[in-house]
């Protein structure tokens, strides 16, 4: 058996990304530090070009001896991940230049992590899942510690690495049990074995629990969220922006394709786990963020809460639920990138500040920036008719249709609690007396990103229909 041309054409976006990254790596190594601006911009362009390649022309099927799968859902998720990563690379320059850690390896590691995310989204086998996940995680551990002269960044990297390795170990242990009981690692084999009566085996359930635990760590769902606030706070801000979007979307996509694919026969078993993780994440995301002063830490808890809502969509286990997840993630991507673009503009006398109180009086000194932040915060809080409201609405509709009444009600209550801290930021910006104004940011990438994100959120708010249709088409990929 030889790897056919079919496989290569199907994996064209991934191959393009890998080849382009390697070429840029060689260029960077030969030219040294002077190559950094070029490599950074080129990496963003390569990531966006890869996103275009996903659709031109769109193909679906399996490749590389069924280890790799491409369908509507994986393609849509990959597009979200690629856009998130490309924007995160674009936003990083000013920050890293300021802390003197502006080196060409950073964009390349982001590109390699993105490659890993694409591979894990497309995984159709437990082994493919694992190598994709490791490629992603390993690159992310390094970029968390990228600002190596900063104690907090190094600490974030080490923490993420140690805890991430434990999670990988749990995932592998679960995978080995599933392999032992089902007689194969391919998703098709597992689903066939489960339908043939292996579903009742105790070992399979234990394996499933471990795999879900490993994946829950990667999406930072409670009770596997411990690393998130520390890593988000310690990592350089552009890296936090990347962490909040791309790996999250990829890991959720992986979770969806694993649980809704091979483990569909065990739906009742994993539904309990996902519902519990979802409710706990929503609650923790709402309550723990109330007293946070550091805005990056606050965003970490906010992202834990958001994962809770996404998991509620997954727990419904229906096509509507998956549609709601894709819809929610697209809106989450726009809002989060916008918020982080704004955070990256928070400077006072040339140094970065990251406390909520530093935003005091922003409405007077920089009304546009304050208004953009207001838009994102209202949207995240889920205030109608903003985009975030539609995202939550779709999730709750799916949950109610799946008869998950109590979790849905708890979710609504958690979102009411969470709106307190989103609105607190608005209050600080608009009503608090300024002590010392933030620097005016010259026009640059971050301002453009914040503006684009604000426009996107407005568009999604006024016309959610087109995005919802795209999400519906993506969800069809799982329910042919």
């Amino acid at each position, binding site marked *: 058996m*030889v*790897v056919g041309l079919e496989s290569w054409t199907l994996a064209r976006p991934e191959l393009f990304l890998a080849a382009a990254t390697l070429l840029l790596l060689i260029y960077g190594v030969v030219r040294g530090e002077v190559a950094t601006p070029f490599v950074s911009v080129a990496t963003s362009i390569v990531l966006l070009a890869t996103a275009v390649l996903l659709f031109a022309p769109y193909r679906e099927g399996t490749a590389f*001896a069924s*280890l*790799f799968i491409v369908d509507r859902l994986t393609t849509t998720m990959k597009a979200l991940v690629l856009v998130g990563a490309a924007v995160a690379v674009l936003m990083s320059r000013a920050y890293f230049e300021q802390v003197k850690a502006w080196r060409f390896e950073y964009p390349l590691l982001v590109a390699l992590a993105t490659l890993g995310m694409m591979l894990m989204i497309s995984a159709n086998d437990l082994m493919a899942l694992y190598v994709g996940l*490791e490629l992603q995680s390993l690159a992310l551990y*390094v970029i968390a510690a990228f600002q190596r002269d900063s104690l907090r960044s190094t600490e974030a990297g080490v923490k993420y690495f140690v805890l991430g390795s434990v999670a990988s170990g749990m995932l592998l242990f679960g995978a080995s049990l599933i392999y032992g009981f089902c007689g194969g690692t391919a998703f098709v084999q597992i689903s066939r074995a489960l339908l043939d009566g292996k579903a009742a085996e105790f070992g399979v359930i234990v394996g499933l629990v471990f795999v879900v635990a490993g994946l829950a760590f990667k999406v930072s769902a409670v009770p596997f969220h411990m690393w998130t606030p520390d890593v988000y706070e310690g990592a350089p801000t552009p890296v936090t922006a990347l962490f909040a979007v791309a790996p999250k979307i990829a890991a959720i996509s992986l979770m969806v394709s694993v649980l809704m694919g091979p483990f569909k026969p065990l739906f009742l078993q994993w539904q309990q786990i996902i519902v519990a993780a979802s409710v706990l994440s929503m609650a923790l995301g709402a309550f723990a963020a109330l007293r946070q002063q550091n805005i990056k830490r606050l965003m970490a808890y906010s992202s834990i809460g958001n994962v809770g809502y996404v998991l509620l969509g997954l727990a419904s286990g229906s096509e509507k639920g998956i549609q709601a997840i894709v819809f929610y993630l697209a809106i989450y991507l726009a809002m989060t990138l916008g918020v982080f673009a704004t955070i990256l503009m928070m400077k006072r006398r040339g140094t970065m500040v990251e406390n909520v109180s530093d935003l005091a009086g922003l409405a007077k000194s920089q009304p546009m920036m304050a208004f953009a932040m207001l838009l994102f915060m209202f949207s995240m809080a889920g205030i109608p008719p903003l985009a975030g409201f539609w995202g939550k609405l779709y999730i709750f509709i799916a949950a109610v249709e799946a008869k998950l009444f109590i979790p849905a009600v708890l979710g609504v209550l958690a979102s009411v609690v969470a709106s307190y801290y989103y609105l607190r930021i608005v209050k600080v910006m608009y009503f608090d007396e300024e002590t010392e104004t933030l620097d005016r940011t010259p026009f640059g990438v971050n301002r453009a990103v914040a503006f684009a994100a604000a426009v996107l959120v407005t568009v999604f708010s006024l016309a959610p229909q087109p995005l919802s249709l795209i999400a519906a088409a993506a969800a069809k990929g799982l329910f042919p």
Partner: protein
Amino acid sequence: MLLQALAFYVFAAVTVASGAMVVVSRNPVYSVLFLILAFFNAAALFLLIGAEFIAMILVIVYVGAVAVLFLFVVMMLDINLVELREGFLKYLPVGAMIGVVLLAEILLGLGVLGTGSATIAALNKQGAQVLAVDNTRAIGRVLYTQYFYLFQVAGIVLLVAMIGAIVLTLRTRPGVRRQKVGDQINRTKEQAMTVVKVPTRGGV
């Protein structure tokens, strides 16, 4: 057959003996060297049962990389031997218990093996019939076809590990003199030599 049995007992005895020496020898460098000896003999044992691929991997990975790494660590860290040996008697019961449990598990495993339908010998025969090739070739056949994708991605993972290690640790320190081969070769006679007329009894 007799020769094979003899070889097995020699290799096995040396493995066990050097394993014991790893634990008891006073000098940690000797410990690592005994560890290498144990690896070599274990590799020979794998060869005896016809698993030549694992044997070679054992030598390359464990002797070539892991043991050398151990040696580096042992020689670079200033380890206080007296302190290391302090808890020996205290932890001996726990260690012995773990050893007994492991031994019991091995014996149980061997006992179960005979009773089941699949014994190692039967499986070996099956495998040999299906593959009809030695195991290096068999692994190579699936590694470069069916699992080609995983093999390639593993390569990229290693590349990331390498980039990561360099990014996080390599620092260009000022004032370090490095050899520049290009400069050395480009040096001309005019740059390198000055002819000095030294007056007699004057000195330079």
